Structure formats: structure tokens, C-alpha cells
């Protein structure tokens, strides 16, 4: 059953002025629960505008958006609830930290939901732990943390609300390779543990290849496709035309296939490529040995 659904969702910026621009154009989507979804598209493709509809920050110019079968704009008094259920973390969320301590900052959203103090405490500790933040960090000022920890504190504030859908806009921007990898593993663990749906907006094809099951691809305000990650990477030529590309290793593997080597389709991480190439090499050695023994 779809947790989030859009019907001909359209959004026009500055309608009726010379700057009128359609940012989202008749998008029809059905997003299921409990999965990691990558959101990719060139700058200006409409992906951020689309994401801002999912928690009611923007109201569609036309078309509908349903959260668990309910039109989120049917009753505006329920929008607050929608925003608790769909969490949105902007790019560079650490600029939004403001509290005296990390604990208070993470607790801010949960407290607004009206939870009891004991439950707030539990949520804050559990979330901090999922993101690998040490307990003694919680009593420090968020502004005294390192860049990576600041970002985790900001993300934890939204995760602690346990939204059914969590949208993260470039959560790894500016992090070094090790920091990126750790952050993505922690996000995936959070997703598995909570059974929620995580939408990961990213410019890194390598990251979405490794960490997502499905990809939502936007291009020029339209939905280009919403499919299994491996199926999307089969469309390397089309992706290139959209200003995107496939992971470096995937393009080498596809070229080998094209040149007639007997490799499986859908190799898009280094680990997959390593196993497939080793298999091929071992087969070759074996057939040579068989030939020699005859």
C-alpha cells in the first residue's frame, strides 16, 4: 500500500508574472513504506520543490497529494500533523541549530509533539545513539561540535520525531569520504530500525548506488522515472542526456558487456564488480585446466 501518493501534482512559481516557471509538472507517484529511496536530478530539475510538497511546505498549484490515503490539503488544521509525519531535513541543517545544549536541540521537535518528558528523553538518547553520538556530547553546546557532529545533531532532531517519511536533502554535502560513508550507514540503520521510508536527495550516483533500493529521477520539472535502482542505471545513455551519469564502475562493467564479456547485468558497486570479474577469471582458469587435462 502506498504511504504517499501524488496525482498530477503541479507547481508553478510566480504564476501570472513574467517570471512564471513550472517547477513540478504533472507528477504521478506512489511511494511505498519501509524503504530507502534516492532522489536524483540536475540542478533545477524540480526535485527540491517536489520534496517540499511532501510535508505541506508548498501547496500544489493543481493536483493532489495524499499521505496514507488522506488528501493533506483537505483539512488545513491537520497540516501540523502532516509535518510531524513527514520530516524534512534541508541542506546544511547545522545552520538551524539554536539551543543551548545538543540535548535541548534534539528534543525541540519531539517536545512540540507534546510527548511526556520520559519519552522525550528516551527518544533523544536512542536517536543520538543511532547516529553514533556519545552521551557526553548531549550536554555540550551544539556550536562547540565538529562539523560532522553538528550535522548529526540537526538530523537527530528530525529523526527523534520518528516521522513515517524522512526526507534528507544532501545530508553528506561537504563531508569527507569516510564521513560520508559513516553518515549513510547510520541513515540506513535508522531506516531499517524504524521501518520508515527515507528519501535521500543526492548528487552522488556512487552513494545512491550503494545505499538505496529505488530511485526517483526528476528532469525538467517532470518525473523521468521511479524504479529499482539497478533498472535506472541500465539507462546510462538517457541519464547522460539528463545531466546525470552512472557510477564510474557501472560504466566500465557495461562497456565490458558490450564488448562481449559474459558478465551479469546490474553491476554498479565496486564489490559487485569485484565478485563478477573474479568469477569470470576463475571460470577462465578452470576451463584452461580442463582443456589441459584432456
Amino acid at each position: 500500500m502506498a504511504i504517499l501518493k501524488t496525482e498530477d501534482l503541479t507547481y508553478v512559481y510566480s504564476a501570472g508574472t513574467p517570471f512564471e516557471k513550472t517547477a513540478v509538472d504533472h507528477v504521478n507517484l506512489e511511494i511505498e513504506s519501509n524503504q530507502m529511496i534516492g532522489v536524483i536530478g540536475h540542478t533545477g530539475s524540480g526535485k527540491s520543490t517536489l520534496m517540499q510538497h511532501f510535508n505541506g511546505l508548498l501547496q500544489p498549484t493543481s493536483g493532489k497529494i495524499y499521505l496514507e490515503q488522506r488528501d493533506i490539503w483537505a483539512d488545513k488544521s491537520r497540516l501540523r500533523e502532516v509535518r510531524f509525519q513527514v520530516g524534512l531535513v534541508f541542506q546544511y541543517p547545522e545552520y538551524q541549530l539554536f539551543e543551548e545544549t545538543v540535548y535541548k536541540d534534539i528534543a525541540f521537535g519531539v517536545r512540540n509533539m507534546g510527548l511526556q518528558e520520559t519519552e522525550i528523553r528516551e527518544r533523544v538518547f536512542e536517536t543520538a545513539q543511532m547516529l553514533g553520538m556519545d552521551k557526553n556530547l548531549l550536554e555540550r553546546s551544539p556550536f562547540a561540535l565538529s562539523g560532522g557532529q553538528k550535522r548529526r545533531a540537526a538530523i537527530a532532531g528530525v529523526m527523534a520525531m520518528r516521522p513515517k517519511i524522512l526526507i534528507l536533502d544532501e545530508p553528506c554535502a561537504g563531508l569527507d569520504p569516510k564521513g560520508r560513508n559513516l553518515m549513510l550507514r547510520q541513515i540506513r540503520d535508522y531506516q531499517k530500525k524504524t521501518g520508515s521510508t527515507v528519501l535521500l536527495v543526492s548528487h552522488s550516483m556512487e552513494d545512491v548506488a550503494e545505499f538505496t533500493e529505488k530511485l526517483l529521477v526528476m528532469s525538467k520539472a517532470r518525473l523521468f522515472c521511479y524504479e529499482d535502482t539497478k533498472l535506472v542505471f541500465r539507462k546510462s545513455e538517457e541519464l547522460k542526456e539528463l545531466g546525470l551519469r552512472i557510477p564510474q564502475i557501472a560504466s566500465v562493467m557495461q562497456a565490458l558487456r558490450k564488448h562481449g564479456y559474459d558478465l551479469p547485468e546490474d553491476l554498479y558497486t565496486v564489490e559487485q564488480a569485484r565478485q563478477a570479474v573474479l568469477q569470470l577469471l576463475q571460470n577462465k582458469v578452470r576451463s584452461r585446466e580442463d582443456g589441459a587435462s584432456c
Partner: protein
Amino acid sequence: MADNRIIRAEHLWFRYPSDTENPENATENNWILKDISLEIQKGSFTAILGHNGSGKSTLAKHMNAILIPEKGDLFVAGMNTREEKNLFAIRQKAGMVFQNPDNQIVASIVEEDVAFAPENLGIPPAEIRRRVDDALKAVRMYEYRHHAPSQLSGGQKQRVAIAGVIAMQPDCIILDEPTAMLDPQGRQEVMETIRKLNREQGITIVLITHYMEEAALAERVIVIDHGEMILDDPPEKVFSQVERMKKLGLDVPQVTELAWELNRAGFRISPEILTESECLEALEKLL
């Protein structure tokens, strides 16, 4: 003898002033840069890698005198950054491009933004016109000269920022993660522009990046860790040390990692592979 070194650091040490003002903090541990000595040749293309907090951006900021060493010296085209009278000349020789294009663009029209620096250098108007046009052509943004920067994509804005630096006719451009906020196409546009400026105009490039594929395009890779320069070699020599790079919190290009894994499994493939085409060729030989 002509000095071919555009940048020269001699036993450079640095820590942030807030750490030195309070003597309690001034311990051995908070040096951001420790005894860095290096030379960068005119016309070269160098990439600097390091994890967050390693000191690489701090080093870059010494290269156009935004920061001054606490101990030791840094020279740009032979001028010591310590001497204030050199400041203008140094910033003209060595221009800097930062991560976020929106923080670097000052004017509301592309060509006015590019003209900003030469105007401040007091260059005659006709010469400014020529420089602005040349700079915009060099980054392939000439046809956008009358646009508002707000209408441009991230990659286009970053190329305008680069044009703003080129209009000063620098010998060297230092770019601090110029592609971190860009989509794949924007990244490619910026990288192509950088390589072209390096090859065709002989501009020295110092590129700080977290993308290993970008560093692989340089002729020299320097790795900074905890304020020390620990590697300084051609990219194939640096990236073939896969385990060491990962231990440093860095990575290697995917194709290099695959070649290294196969090599480790006992197959005859060089771990010094850097590009897709090199990898494809080597795999075809192997298979």
C-alpha cells in the same frame, strides 16, 4: 635564473589566534599546520586531499594571504605573505574560488560581477571590457554575460566565479572544493574548465577536493593529515595505496579500487589505474 616556483612554503606552522591568545590553549596539540614545506611549480596542476579538519583549507588560505603563518614563511611569486605591502600583488597573482558560488557573486549581472575585481585594481575601462570578455569566453559563459546570476545553475555560477578570478589575470588559481555543491554535470563543467585553463593558458591550479576522480586528473596529489604533509606523489602512486588512503579517511577512484582488489587476489593487473578507459583496457587484457 628564473624562479619557476609560484608558491613556496618554508617550515610553515599555523594555529588559529583564539588558540594563541589564551596561553592555556597554546599547547602542542592545536597546531593546524605543522612544519609544511612545499613548492608548487608554475603551470602545474596539484590536488590537495585530506579529511575534514585535516588542515587542507587552512593551507589553501595561506596561498593568497588570507592567513599568515605563525612560524615559517609562505611566498607567492617570490613575495612573502607576511609583508603587508605585498598583499594586493599577491592576491592578483593567486586568486581563490570557494565552495559556495552564492557567497562569491556580488553583482546582479554576470559581466558586472566578472568586472568587479579588475575595477578595484584600477584598470582602464577598455582593458576591463577586454578582460571580462576574454574571461567569460574562457569559461564558456560569454553568451550569458547579460544574465542575472540567480538564473544560472550551480555549475554556471561557479564558472562565473572562476571568470571573476581570471579577469585579474592571475598566475595561479586555488579552488577550495569548487564542486561540492554541484550536480554531476555541473561538476564536469567546472573540471573541464579548470583543465582547459591549466593546459591552454598555463594557469597554475591548486585544487582541494573530496572527489577522488577529480584529484586523479591532477599531475600531483598532496595528502594532508593532522596538519602534516604525509604524501606527495603523482596520483597513480597515491591512489594505488588503497588501504592507507582508507585508513586516512579518504578514498580512491572506484576503478583503482577494483584493480587493486584483483591484483590482491593474485591477478596480473596494475593497481595504478586511474581512469575508466585505463581500467577497461586492463580488464580486457586480463580477461
